[in-house]
């Protein structure tokens, strides 16, 4: 049998690659612009600074990418990160747990539990993910304040500070950890049945279910992992700051979603890549860093951030439609 529409088919990853390329272009434009405007931008010291401050948003963005690929969204990540930090310090300081690592472990578990709760609300009670995680956000943030009594707590554990501040062979440990997680989840997403199933679920949930994929179980795992990664982000934050505060990571969810979407992951599910997310995270970080180096008022920085998000996503949208039209014309 002949193909009925005899158009040459694009390579499957081609479309994603195009998005990644236009992202990389955005990235390059920013780098060139900042390098031109600020002599301090491309210095070794600033690059190390950039490298060592990527991890928090970067790691949480991994979880958000997974969630968005399944067609969901999680806006509780910032609250979970804050809760994790608070749990660590409260267990250590108020409850006298013997080791900070044990407390950190408990914090990771707490994050996972919030994630699982999100997953249950979404799968069992069929609550829209935005609303479910909005509720969880409210509750987790509230809990962080209740547990800490609103206090900032110092955590002076040199071993623990290695997590956020240490370096191996000059490379920040948090960056290494983040790269490791990106590699790990890249493999999971692209080369394990679990990862592929996530795309299937986001692409067509009913098809996935009818193909015998345990959709609810997958979603549970994804939200739990996102909770876990958010908690890990919170721990790195605490370690970097050597202190925990319930007010921390305010608005992290929006930064993370912006980075993931910037990276080409679709809010409607089924599409997305960790490579894109990685670049998205770097772009937002560079934007912040560059604008600060240029001594631009923080008020204008908000304006710039929103504008870049709209421009980048808008441009990609137009490019995609244009190339689709081209492809149709070519048929």
């Amino acid at each position, binding site marked *: 049998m002949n193909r009925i*529409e005899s158009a040459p088919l694009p390579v499957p990853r081609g479309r994603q690659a195009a998005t990644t390329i236009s992202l990389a272009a955005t990235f390059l434009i920013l780098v060139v612009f900042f390098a031109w405007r600020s002599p301090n931008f491309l210095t070794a010291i600033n690059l190390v600074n950039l490298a060592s401050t990527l991890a928090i948003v970067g790691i949480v963005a991994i979880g958000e990418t997974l969630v968005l690929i399944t067609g969901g969204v999680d806006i509780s990540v910032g609250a979970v990160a804050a809760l994790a930090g608070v749990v660590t310090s409260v267990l250590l300081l108020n409850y006298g747990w013997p080791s900070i690592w044990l407390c950190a472990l408990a914090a990771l578990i707490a994050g996972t539990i919030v994630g699982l709760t999100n997953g249950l609300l979404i799968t069992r009670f069929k609550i829209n993910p935005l609303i479910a995680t909005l509720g969880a956000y409210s509750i987790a943030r509230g809990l962080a304040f209740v547990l800490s009594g609103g206090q900032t707590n110092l955590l002076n554990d040199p071993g623990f500070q290695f997590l956020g501040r240490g370096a191996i062979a000059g490379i920040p440990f948090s960056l290494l950890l983040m790269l490791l997680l990106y590699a790990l989840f890249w493999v999971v997403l692209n080369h394990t049945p679990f990862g592929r199933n996530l795309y299937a679920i986001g692409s067509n949930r009913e*098809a996935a279910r009818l193909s015998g*994929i*345990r959709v609810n179980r997958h979603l549970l795992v994804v939200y739990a992992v996102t909770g876990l990664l958010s908690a890990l982000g919170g721990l790195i934050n605490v370690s970097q700051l050597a202190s925990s505060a319930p007010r921390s990571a305010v608005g992290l969810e929006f930064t993370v979603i912006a980075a993931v979407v910037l990276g080409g992951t679709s809010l409607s599910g*089924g599409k997305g890549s960790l490579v894109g997310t990685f670049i998205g995270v770097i772009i937002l970080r560079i934007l912040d860093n560059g604008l600060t180096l240029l001594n631009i008022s923080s008020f204008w920085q908000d304006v710039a951030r929103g504008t870049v998000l709209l421009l980048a996503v808008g441009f990609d949208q137009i490019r995609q439609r244009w190339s689709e039209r081209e492809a149709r*014309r070519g048929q």
Partner: protein
Amino acid sequence: MDNNRRPLLEMRDISKRFFGVPVLDRVSLDLYAGEVLALLGENGAGKSTLIKILNGDYQKDGGDIYLDGELVTLREPRDAEAHGIRMIYQELHYAPDLSVAENLLLGHLPRRGPFVDWKAVDDIARKYLALLKVNIPPRALMRDLSVVEREIVEIVKALAIQARIIVMDEPTAALAPREVDILFEIIRNLQAQNVAIIYISHRLDEIPRIANRVTILRDGKHIATRPIEDLDTREIAQLMVGRKMTERSRKTAPAAGEPVLRLERLTRPGDFEDISLTVGRGEIVGIFGLLGAGHGRLTRAIFGADTYQSGQIFINGTPVTIRSPRDARRAGIGFVPIDRKVQGLVLDMTVRENVTLANWGQLSRMGWFRRRLERANTQKWVDRLGIRMAGGVETRTRYLSGGNQQKVVLARWLEAGVKVLILNEPTWGVDVGARADIYEQLEALAAQGLAILIVSSDIQEVLSVSHRILTMHKGRISAEFSRADASEERLLQAAAGGEA
């Protein structure tokens, strides 16, 4: 068929109620290895519910299911699959952003250690695609495939899982005759390997070609199970409907009035080229083409849902520019799309709201609806077209049967007062009884002066309703027939590119 063997599948006295209303009333069905059992019935007869129970989608309220003589419980599709039962739904379920190969093996990706064995994925996909002689690259994205190709992948998917029982719900609805042949070929191969098939179709003419036995349901009850040799299609239809059917007689075509719609060299390269045709007042023109011949795209372009590159559209002799469905509506063109659930209806809106969807301008004053007028007009069309629903015009269209849904879309354009009505595959997924009904309505409308253009891949449909028939092949009009000249063979030949 050796009837002394034990059946592979027995469904005994299956009952199912929704909100206290019986949908299935002690329905039994048995299926033997290596046979094709046609499961027939009108929409709402309970076929879907029955197979969804078999697939574990629904839980039965009563009755038992035996596989190989053993009682089984099927709580979810996974259970069914574990027992070798595989469903191919009429509405395709695929992941558009994954590759063909991944879709084939969705939920069953072969692994090496914890990882997906991509080489095996490729190999398996190629193997099964080759089995169907399908030339679809396994790495193509589903999104980039045509509707037909997607369906074929769906069928291959069932093969790939090596099911013992495959349920096919209207598998040929989207297939061209040649593709149907390929499918039947495959089904016979499957039979040879002792796979049992439950085959659901509205195309009764296919049944004798492929089925060994038929089971007929009506109103949630089991009506008959007979070997195919004992029945002809007429009898089957009678059993399904429960009363005598009269054969549609082909009347002679009335003389066409002055041209209402005229296309001149309408072209969009790659889809359709040089299309010139006219549809007169009171005339029904049919365009027959195999799937992918470009006739579907043509209708969308006339209606402004797609663009055309060159050419001109005339309405009543005046050239019109159509860039959007709005322009088309203003020019007096109505369009009944192929997929009424996706493109035709707002399912959660009422019949009234759907009927008046294209005529807000006339039914409102300063943006406020004239409620009484709206209701009255809706009621008028409901009566005239015989749209049936229990709850009156305030019923949500979601709860109407396929035929009635189609009539709602029809009513919308009549309400909008169009001069030309374009229908793309007007009876897709509509059951036998409603089909005849719709044809009659179309003829009546034509008799009242409407110009109707029907585009279809169903040769019977084109033959039975059109006054004049065009065939399309590879985006061009390949032949034209009067009603008297047209025959199944000649149409097929012309549509396949042969000389008329």
